[in-house]
């Protein structure tokens, strides 16, 4: 393990990088020492795995990192050669490629060229995989294939789609039963008994991490805002990968303090050029994240609202498995259109947003097929204009900078016109 460092002197951004690396390093150490490593979907109950001292790696975050560092195409080529359609989720395709290359390395002892060149973090192969399909059913198929290709167990915490809200009692019971079952599977795999006292502490830790995560998002409600919403996309890595550890809490707490200090000193995200405030709906376009941000920044359009924080709004009653199950079922993408639109509208209201921009993400049917319906509901509620643009979370071929710029420009014009009309209403 690396030398301990004094995190007190680090900025939140430095802590983010430090803890991300530390998590990967811990996973590699686990593998080396014969302890369990698990690949997990982004919103699966990490609490039970952390309790059992299982190291967690997160394929979605890992794939996003590869995309942001412009390593996606090499990976996508590997899965396309295996017969995966280019229409499928690019996170899945990148991760299945990475898995394939790691497997080849494990079997042959040689590092494939594409793996050597891969700019993503070095994570070990899993001994078990876990998915909760509260963000999409694509995960079911993706993790089925991981499990099949690696011959490792697939722990599923199935989160049935909520056609009505709140989460129904029989749904909560089903979720709780699955968590109990997952615990027995982990006990069998690890040969250890589940420590319910430690579990309680891990739950409490998770609640603290979530609390500070939501506090960051709240900083976007200041006008002008000290928070640049795009930062949420980066800090999200820790709410995904370390919410059941203190790494997330410490980092988020530091970030909140920094933002509060900026607010106090009048140091805003866009200085004195915050002209319009946006809700961003959907995953970032990782290979073009710089372009998407700069295009907005050049127009003084600041993202102050995002639905991301709500995905990890995992508030539950300690020691209550049904309540934990409910919180993991409650993710807005796993709920009816009325609830999704309510969440989106609440985010717009909290962020005092003037407009809504929605990513028609080629990778994510669940997130984008209802964009139009949600946007119309939010438009009616908040009287703000919206645009949709085509893109993809990590396949760089599915995004056109010119189309994006044009849509952003149109959105700005719509907001400007609307504001003019509000200032001088027709007699």
């Amino acid at each position, binding site marked *: 393990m690396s030398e301990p460092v004094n995190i007190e002197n680090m900025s939140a951004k430095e802590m983010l990088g430090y803890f991300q690396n530390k998590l990967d390093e811990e996973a590699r150490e686990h593998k080396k020492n014969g302890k369990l490593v698990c690949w997990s979907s982004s919103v699966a109950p990490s609490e039970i795995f952390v309790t059992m001292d299982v190291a967690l790696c997160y394929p979605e975050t890992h794939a996003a990192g590869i995309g942001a560092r412009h390593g996606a195409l090499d990976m996508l080529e590997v899965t396309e050669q295996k017969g995966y359609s280019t229409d499928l989720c690019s996170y899945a395709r990148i991760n299945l490629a990475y898995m394939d290359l790691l497997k080849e390395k494990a079997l042959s002892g040689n590092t494939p060229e594409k793996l050597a060149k891969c700019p993503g973090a070095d994570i070990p192969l899993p001994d078990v995989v876990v998915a909760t399909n509260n963000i999409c059913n694509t995960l079911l198929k993706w993790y089925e294939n991981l499990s099949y290709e690696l*011959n490792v167990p697939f722990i599923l915490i199935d989160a049935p789609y909520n056609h009505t809200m709140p989460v129904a009692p029989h749904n909560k019971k089903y979720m709780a039963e699955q968590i109990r079952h997952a615990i027995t599977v982990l006990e069998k795999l690890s040969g250890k008994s589940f420590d319910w006292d430690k579990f309680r502490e891990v739950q409490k830790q998770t609640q603290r991490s979530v609390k500070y995560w939501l506090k960051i998002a709240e900083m976007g409600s200041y006008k002008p805002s000290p928070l640049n919403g795009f930062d949420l996309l980066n800090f999200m890595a820790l709410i995904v990968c370390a919410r059941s550890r203190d790494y997330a809490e410490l980092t988020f707490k530091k970030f909140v303090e920094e933002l509060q200090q900026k607010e106090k000193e009048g140091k805003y995200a866009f200085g004195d050029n915050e002209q319009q405030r946006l809700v961003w709906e959907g995953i970032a376009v990782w290979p073009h994240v710089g372009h998407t941000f700069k295009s907005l920044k050049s127009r003084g359009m600041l993202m102050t609202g995002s639905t991301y924080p709500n995905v990890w709004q995992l508030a539950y009653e300690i020691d209550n498995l049904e309540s934990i199950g409910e919180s993991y079922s409650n993710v807005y993408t796993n709920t009816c259109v009325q609830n999704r639109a309510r969440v989106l509208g609440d985010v717009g209201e909290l962020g005092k947003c003037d407009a809504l921009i929605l990513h028609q993400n080629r990778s994510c049917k669940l997130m984008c097929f209802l964009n139009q319906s949600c946007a119309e509901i939010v438009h009616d509620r908040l009287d703000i204009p919206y645009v949709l643009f085509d893109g993809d979370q990590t396949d760089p071929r599915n995004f056109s900078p010119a189309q994006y710029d044009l849509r952003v420009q149109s959105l700005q014009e719509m907001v400007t016109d609307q504001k003019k009309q509000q200032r001088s209403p027709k007699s």
Partner: protein
Amino acid sequence: MTRINEIISGLQKVTADPEKAVADYTKETGKGAVGICYLYAPDEIFHAAGYLPVGMWGATVPISKARTHLPPFACSVMQAVMELECAGVYDILKAVVFSVPCDTLKCMSQMWKGKCPSLTFCHPQNRKLEASNVFLAEEYRQLKERFEAIIGEKIPDAAIEKSIGIYNANRAVMREFTDVAAEYPDIFDPVKRHAVIKSRFFMEKSRHTALVSELIAEVKKQPKKPWPGKKIILSGIMAEPDGFLDVFRECGMAVAADDLAQEGRQYRVDVPDVPGKEPLYRLARWWQDFDGCSLATDLATVDKGKFRGNMLVDMAKKYRADGVVICMVKFCDPEEFDYPVLYPVLDKAGIPNLMVEVDLEIRSFEQVKTRVQTFRDILG
């Protein structure tokens, strides 16, 4: 042969005009029909109430209004269903039922454009746990209650039990039919075989069972002829439209068996008899016992391999098929995820295989034909 042709032609007419089937049934019974959107649902509940559950599998229609609601990369079948929703085709139904085993269906359940009420439920995916049966039985209970509120009457358990019996009888006869059809490829080309199977979505099941039983009996009287062409297994969601299936006929191929969601997967297993359990629980158990579909999560991969791949290898051996054709509905994620791990299993077992795209919008099948012709040539 006259009676055989009469029955097949009658079933083809039913399949070609579901609207008439619904209208005739409504006139005759004074009740109506319930649309089952796409894949799997407890049809027995609606049958028990005297309503006709009808399949909603899209149609060959030009996509225009659906584009307002769905991006072009939504699956081909749902594009067609949305187009028909917008055109008011489903407005003659008493209700429609959506289950949501994929992301596209989740969204479709939230943007219903028809005039009749839509009812939704969710199939659990941790299917081998008892908790999953309990959850699904409760989903079915709530579904039943919502339908009872629409029709203004209660559906007794005894009626559901009776309907389960009628449906299981139909499942059994369909399994027998597909085996018989494989023995008589000169009578059942792929299009005719499909019409016999698909007609079960638009007919009261006991009537369908009676007709198919008669058809089987008549066919068995005929001498079996040697088949000079090739025999294949179709796998996927569906193999439509008829123009698509006709390509196989033109290429001298007969369907020996299928693993299609629209066909064999519907009646692969029966609703089990579970002593002491209510009928809704029995219906839930069907989902637990059912395997080999891309939309029913397969958790038993460790050491055993994926069920679907092994099942297809077994089927190919049992029916002495020359090859397997994967019919890939355009933009269907679950099937697209199965393919890269499925075809290597077939390759390893030495079973020739081909993947062709199914797109309900297309009317020209020359590209499919080129691929199927090449495949036939490879088969020798």
